């Protein structure tokens, strides 16, 4: 079986500089994809066009959309879904699962340390400046014990497969990582469109995420509470991830609240129900730290609840994730992750980190300024793929511009070698065929008191534009159903 054998792959051009997830270098299909390739080859070009349209309208009708804010109006867009699933075999997954769990646990230790004894700083592993100068460090968290001892209940770990065929972690997201609802939607959509393919593979389910999340939220209930009342808090229906917030609340069977539904009295949190006040014990908050409590943080925030932080500090309510976790998913802290893992767990890191140059260090800054064309420059504290410069895409003038920006505030930037994201067969509407596109993988790990869970699957994000390396949905990325095979 070869890439050249079917019209739906006629536009598939292999590039040797990228790792191809599906085809060997000689164009033969990799073992794990053989059955899938065989089934897909039985479909015509027209079949895929119509399946693609059906999937799109299904997402649209179900309102699985996000809002894009234009100049004049708010547009509702679907997050493009790709018909070709990504398959991860059990041994490969085992490695990933162990690796992301290790990272999440190490980060939890790190957060506790940062907000208590700061041993890792005293021992000279992580420089104090990184903590002190971080915009996401919350002094209010100093000395607080989060219920169950957990800070980063939910971690989204972004991985890529480099041209050497190995996984590398690009980012740890431990503030409010999003996208998990798409993992479930993608599975549902693929099952509807091409149910036959599931007969050929034994795949783990992804629908158990919400149940595990709820159980984990219950393990971190405040002390002395028997049956905790758990809720999800959202900024509201105009938030771009509102679908996900409502999905999670629905799937867990808990209330989806907004800040205005809650109030704090004598350091206890209540929600206003049709039968009066009802106590709230655990809040999965999808609101950023700065907005959760106008009395403690941004005073003009209308999204949060006045007094919430004080209730949290008294141990009367659990916030999931804890405030102040952002200090650890900072791109500068990322570069110390191998040391952080060794320091707290006394283990070798299972997953690779990408080598990182700190512009805050004079010698590394010098290297960066001289080698911009070979590097990716990232701002330390931006999310969503914004502010990233890819060196080999810049003109001479642009390189000079970037140099100036970095030199002006070196602490704000890090640089990494240009990693090449692996490619995967992706349905492209314009050519009505499958073409290689770059993909990454976001995994979801949840930590509770004496309980943890890694979702067997994850969000494979795909950059739909040819040659594009940025997979974020806000920048035109789509996603794929991701199968983890049972052994």
């Amino acid at each position, binding site marked *: 079986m070869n890439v050249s054998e079917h019209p739906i792959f006629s536009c598939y051009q292999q590039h040797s500089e990228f790792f191809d997830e599906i085809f060997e270098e000689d164009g033969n299909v990799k073992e794990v994809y053989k059955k899938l390739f065989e089934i897909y080859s039985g479909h015509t070009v027209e079949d895929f066009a119509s399946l693609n349209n059906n999937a799109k309208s299904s997402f649209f009708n*179900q309102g699985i959309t996000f809002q894009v804010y234009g100049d004049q109006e708010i547009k509702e867009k679907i997050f493009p879904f790709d018909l070709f699933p990504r398959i991860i075999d059990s041994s490969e997954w085992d490695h990933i699962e162990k690796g992301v769990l290790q990272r999440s646990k190490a980060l939890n230790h790190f957060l506790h340390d940062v907000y208590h004894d700061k041993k890792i700083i005293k021992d000279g592993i992580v420089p104090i400046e990184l903590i002190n100068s971080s915009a996401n460090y919350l002094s209010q968290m100093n000395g607080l014990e989060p219920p169950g001892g957990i800070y980063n209940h939910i971690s989204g770990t972004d991985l890529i497969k480099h041209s050497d065929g190995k996984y590398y972690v690009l980012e740890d997201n431990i503030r409010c990582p999003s996208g998990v609802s798409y993992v479930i939607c993608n599975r549902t959509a693929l099952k509807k469109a091409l149910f036959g393919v599931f007969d050929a593979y034994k795949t783990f389910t992804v629908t158990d995420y919400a149940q595990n999340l709820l159980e984990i939220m219950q393990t971190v209930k405040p002390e002395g509470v028997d049956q905790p009342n758990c809720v999800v808090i959202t900024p*509201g229906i105009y938030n771009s991830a509102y679908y996900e917030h409502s999905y999670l609340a629905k799937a867990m069977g808990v*209330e989806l609240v907004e800040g205005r539904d809650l109030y704090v009295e004598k350091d206890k949190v209540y929600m*206003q129900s*049709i039968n009066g006040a009802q106590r709230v014990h655990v809040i999965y908050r999808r609101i950023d730290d700065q907005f959760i409590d106008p009395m403690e943080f941004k005073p003009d925030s209308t999204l949060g609840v006045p007094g919430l932080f004080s209730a949290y500090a008294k141990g009367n309510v659990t916030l999931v994730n804890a405030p102040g976790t952002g200090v650890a998913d900072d791109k500068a802290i990322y570069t110390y992750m191998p040391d952080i893992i060794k320091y707290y767990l006394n283990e070798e890191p299972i997953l690779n980190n990408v080598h990182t140059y700190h512009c805050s260090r004079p010698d590394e800054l010098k290297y960066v300024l001289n080698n911009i064309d070979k590097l990716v420059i990232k701002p330390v504290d931006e999310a969503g793929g914004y502010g990233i410069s890819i060196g080999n895409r810049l003109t001479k003038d642009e390189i000079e511009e970037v140099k100036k920006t970095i030199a002006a505030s070196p602490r704000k930037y890090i640089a990494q070698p240009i990693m090449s994201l692996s490619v995967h067969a992706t349905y492209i509407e314009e050519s009505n065929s499958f073409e290689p596109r770059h993909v990454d993988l976001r995994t979801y790990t949840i930590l509770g008191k004496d309980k943890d869970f890694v979702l067997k699957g994850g969000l494979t994000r795909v950059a739909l534009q040819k040659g594009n390396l940025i997979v974020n949905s806000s920048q035109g990325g789509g996603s794929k159903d991701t199968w983890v095979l049972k052994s």
Partner: protein
Amino acid sequence: MLARVANNLFWMGRYIERSEHIARFLNVNYFSSLDAPTTESQSRQRVLRSSLFMTNTVTTSVDHLLDEQEVLFNIALNIDEPYSIINAVRNARENANSARDVLSTEFYEALNKFYHAVLRYDPNHFKVKGLFEFTTLVTESTAILREKIRGTLFHDEVYAIIMLGISVERAIQVSHIIQTKYTDALESTPNDELFERSYEWITLLKCIESHDMMRRFYKKTPDSSNVLEFLVLHPDCPRSIMNSINRLNKHILSLSMEKLPSKNSTAYLVGKTQAHMAYLSIETIEEDIQGHLTQIRETLYTIASSIEKEYFLYN
């Protein structure tokens, strides 16, 4: 359930119901006038005035010449007119969005599809030949929505709140429609006898989807007396005001935590209204039709605001 979400569900129910009544009124009123027996009943200007009155409660002067396409567009698809169908559908969906976690996926998908179908409906097509098609889309979609509410939601407080919204809006809309057609009958007939047997009573029954069943029940030609009795007082006519008030009573009792509703509660107010209506006769209503209809509607508004005060107040 959250008080805010309850408020959203109540209004979602109201807006779904409202869109249906406006669409059906527009459809039936327009099409039954085409071959109406008298010149008055056939008058397009009167149909337009009546439609505007029903949706907007604004009386248009007889001297004011209305533009047909403009009026129909305003009622159906003009996003700038607060009383338009498109706005009712938009508000229904907006309210559903805020309560999405307590609604079933099946119901939400049906509502969302309906919303997009209305939003995408081409106004130019509508103005020229889409009146029947568009109003049918609305009445059929709302029927699907009601079934998804009944058949896919858990019959708990969420269901009770939606049904309160639907029932209160239905009673209000039906009383509106009765009042509108009552005015039409008065205007189009010169004397009492003709008024009693006006063609408008048949149109009224059709506007409330009750023509066939009324015939079956009375086995008589519709006249002012039996039509009003059927639509206001008959508990088994699914769209009568009495039927809606009975439902209001059922659902408010399922929400209320009190066994014996206290005097200032909504349950008490609804119970009192139900008892009053149950012993009201058509003869009493006929002494002052206009006055009774107005009074019923005012009671319904009081009930709606009492529900809001008792259950939805937050911040």
